[in-house]
Structure formats: structure tokens, C-alpha cells
């Protein structure tokens, strides 16, 4: 991707993972993962199914408790906090203000039966916005930003197409201006032209807002378009990490070479 965003100059990492591991009984889903994510940086986690990508994402976003290691996050007040030490109230507050989480299946991240406007406005109401007009204005300006016709603000997302749902989910997450967004296969299940449009949109939003993002994907094209850095996972371990162009153009590990060479030529 393009030059790193200027907030990369912030020398304090936003999120630090140290020797993260997760076991399910004797099964090791993820082991010894360490990295630091800086503000404005987009990190892609790639690997095939079952390589531990999704488990890692859940560990990083404090939805799962790690079996080993810990994750720390720099709060808005600049203090680095261990996520495991946060109370549940703080964690949930973080989750709906400073973080976003984009699910692969929009039905998981949206309330399918309530209108698009309310879906976007929910986070605002959750942090105490109490003025209908302002909530609605904010919702409609976000719909515009994700290229959804504002005339459809009162329609429920179940009447939306797959691509629109995904864009709505992004709007819903970004309305509180989070600093970090987790994305789990954000383009999965969309057709190619819709994928391209969504990727374009996400790329613009990420650079406009200076978002840091952790994107889990099995699609190397998504990683190449969105991310600054790539982590390649296999069997729960990180086997290769580096700048996106470097990893994808000049893979070092045999497994990464295999992944890169399995892309169908366009």
C-alpha cells in the first residue's frame, strides 16, 4: 500500500501482544505470538483455514482469555493497560467506543430487524447521546461516507444487499471514531466487483481517519491492498512477518511461497 500514515510517527505502540497462546485442551490453536501495532498502522494476518487467525483475533480483541501471554492496549488517556486486567464494564465500553469489530457475516455485527439509522446510531446512544435529530444527522452523514443512499436510512439491513450490509457494518463501527478496528474476513462472501468497491472504501476510510486495523484474511489481495504489514500464520504460529510488499513479493518461508504462488493469475 501507499506510504505509511503520518500518525505512524507516534512512537508509542497502540497495542502490544506478548507471547500470546491459546490451547483448547491438548489442541494448540495459537502459540507464542508477539507484535506491536502502532497508531494508524494496518496489519494483515494471513494463513489458511485452521491456522489460528480467528483465534488470534479473538485473543487480541479480548473476546477470549489467552492461555499464555498478554495483550496491552494504550487507552485514550495514553496509559498502557493489560486487557486481562480490565473490568468487564471497561472492556465492553472500549469495545463500543475506541474499537470496532467488523464481522465476516454482517448479520452478526448488525441488528437486522432495526433500521440502518438506528444501527449506526446505537453506539452513539450507548455513550449517552440523547438528541434524536443529532443522532440521525450523524447516522445519515455516515451512510453517505460509506456510499449508502440516505433515502434508505429507515430500511432494515435485511432489505440490503450483501455489499451494502458490509458497508453499513463499517459505518456502525466507525461512528464513535474508534482508533482500532478488527476485521474478520471483511470481504468474504462478496462477489469480486463488490469486494473491489468495499476495499477501496475501507482503504480511504482507514487513511482519512488514521485508523489502526488488524485484518484477518485468507485473501492475499486484500492484504496487499489494505495493509502495511503482514503476518503469515501456520499451525498456530507466526512463521513470517514483514512489510506487505516485501512478504508478498519476496516470500522467505516455503509456506508463504506456496500461499503466494497459489493466487490465480488475473
Amino acid at each position: 500500500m501507499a506510504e505509511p500514515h503520518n500518525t505512524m510517527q507516534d512512537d508509542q505502540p497502540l497495542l502490544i501482544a506478548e507471547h500470546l497462546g491459546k490451547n483448547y485442551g491438548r489442541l494448540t490453536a495459537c502459540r507464542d505470538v508477539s507484535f506491536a501495532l502502532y497508531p494508524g498502522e494496518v496489519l494483515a494476518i494471513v494463513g489458511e483455514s485452521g491456522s489460528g487467525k480467528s483465534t488470534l483475533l479473538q485473543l487480541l480483541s479480548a473476546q477470549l482469555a489467552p492461555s499464555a501471554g498478554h495483550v496491552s492496549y494504550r487507552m485514550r488517556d495514553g496509559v498502557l493497560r493489560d486487557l486481562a486486567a480490565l473490568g468487564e464494564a471497561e472492556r465492553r465500553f472500549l469495545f463500543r467506543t475506541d474499537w470496532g469489530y467488523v464481522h465476516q457475516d454482517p448479520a452478526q455485527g448488525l441488528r437486522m430487524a432495526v433500521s440502518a439509522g438506528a444501527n449506526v446510531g446505537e453506539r452513539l446512544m450507548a455513550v449517552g447521546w440523547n438528541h434524536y435529530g443529532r443522532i440521525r444527522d450523524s447516522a445519515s452523514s455516515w451512510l453517505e461516507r460509506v456510499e449508502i443512499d440516505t433515502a434508505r436510512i429507515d430500511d432494515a439491513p435485511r432489505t440490503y444487499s450483501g455489499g451494502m450490509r458490509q458497508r453499513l457494518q463499517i459505518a456502525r463501527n466507525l461512528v464513535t471514531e474508534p482508533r482500532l478496528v478488527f476485521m474478520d474476513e471483511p470481504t468474504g462472501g462478496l462477489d469480486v466487483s463488490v469486494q473491489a468497491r468495499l476495499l477501496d472504501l475501507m482503504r480511504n476510510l482507514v487513511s482519512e481517519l488514521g485508523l489502526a486495523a488488524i485484518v484477518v484474511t485468507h485473501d492475499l489481495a486484500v492484504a496487499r491492498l489494505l495493509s502495511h504489514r503482514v503476518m503469515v500464520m501456520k499451525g498456530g504460529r507466526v512463521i513470517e512477518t514483514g512489510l506487505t510488499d516485501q512478504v508478498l513479493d519476496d516470500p522467505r518461508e516455503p509456506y508463504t511461497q506456496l500461499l503466494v504462488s497459489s493466487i490465480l493469475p488475473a
Partner: protein
Amino acid sequence: MNAPAYNFAYLDEQTKRMIRRAILKAIAIPGYQVPFASREMPMPYGWGTGGVQVTAAILGPDDVLKVIDQGSDDTTNAISIRKFFGKTAGVATTTATADATVIQTRHRIPEAPLHAGQVLVYQVPIPEPLRFLEPRETETRRMHALGEYGLMHVKLYEDIARFGHIATSYAYPVKVNARYVMDPSPTPKFDNPKMDNCPALQLFGAGREKRIYAIPPHTDVVSLDFEDHPFTRYRFDAPCALCGAGDSYLDEIVTDDKGGRMFVCSDTDYCESRQQAGHRGSESAAPHKERAHG
């Protein structure tokens, strides 16, 4: 010596003890839904099994009981519950709001102001105000625990987006004592302001859902709203056709198949006592005429 067929007020003493404990806890944490071991009652769920259990647990021999259903003292449900306690507890019953010490109600708060020492027992079908937006009980409990009530405003937002105003007209969510959001049972929102700072104790029983909650006397009860769409009461814009009252909650009664209708007080006791005091509405018959027809 003849053993009585039923214990006083139907329920056995251990059950009453269990229910009273739940009630005490509910009073200590206003608006919090306390789980309790709801019993089978000799009536179907939805007919007030929760309210009946609460009433049975608090009733004493000196109490005077009033039962209303949609404000009325003389509908099937009200009459049978009143008779039930008349038979199983032998307590005095009344229809006069002011004379009652315990009032069990479905869907209304009496028009006459309640006073200290009275207990209002509500029958509650669905105690969870967040239920229709969040189906998971584990999640709604957590939301209550953490005071995450953004979702409640999502419901009101949807109303305004769809109808242009907050169209929720009953079971209108309230915040109790600036902490818990509570479903005031399906009372019309007209009655919501009566809950605020009420001198009587208000108890809520949900039999099927096995929850008891309470508003202690003189507790703040605030109806949720938006700054630019404040809470408003709703009542039909008409006086009562029988007693002429301009301030009571009205029922609409269809009188023929040509669009004829009349509005009368939903609170029968209020309406009758006003008529006895000489107030007349547009449709009220003179007493002797009524007799001649009957």
C-alpha cells in the same frame, strides 16, 4: 378439629417466605428483577399468576383487597381473583381505591391518588424491557448489571423514524432511582407519571417469567425519551361520556356498526364515584330511566 382446606391465602407458609424474601430484595434494589421460584397457581399463565403470588405473600387478615383489570373492578379476571382471596384468605374486599390496603392490578394505575400504606401489585407478562431487541437472557442481565441502556433508546429511535413520534403507548420503559431500566408492565404511558415519587409501595410479579421487582415509596421514576422528543402522556381528547371527567384515562367503546363510539373512564371506581357525586357526561342515563330499561 377441622383442618382448613387451604392455608391462609392459598400458598403455604414456606412459599410465602420465599416470595417475601424476593420482595424484600426487590425493594432494596429498586427496579432490579429478582428471580423467584414461581409456583403453579390455579389459573393459567397470563391471567396474573405473578401478581396473585405477590398478593398472597403480602396479604394479612386485616387487609382490604381491591382487584382491577384494565381499570375495571367488574371484569372476569378481577372478579375471580377477588373471590379467590375472599375464599382462601377471608379478607375484606372493596372496589373503592381509597379504602383498599392492597390493590392488585392489570394494566392500570387507579386515577385516585394512592396514599402511604397502600400496596399496588402489578401483574406482569414480560418483565424484561430489553427483550424484544436482545433475545439472550444472559446478555440482558449483563446489560442491566453494567447499566448499558443504549439499546432502549434504539427502540425509541425506531419509533420516531417510523412514525414521527414515540409511538410506544404502553409498557413504556422507565428508569428507576437513576439506575435500572424497568418495564412498568403493559400500563398505558398515561400512567407512567403516577409511578414517580408515589407514596404507595409498588410491587411487580411475573409468574411465567419468575421475576419480582419493586418501586419503593417516594422513588424517582423517569420515563425515557429524547431531548428533542420528550415524553408525553396520551389520552383521547374527549371527556368521559358517563361522568364528564376531563383528566382520566379513557376506554373507547364501539356502540354500533355505523362508526358510533363513546369514551368512558377506564377506572370504573373513579367514574362511579364521580357519578355519585353528581357529575354527568353526555351519555349518562338518569338513574330511574336505567332501572326502567333493566
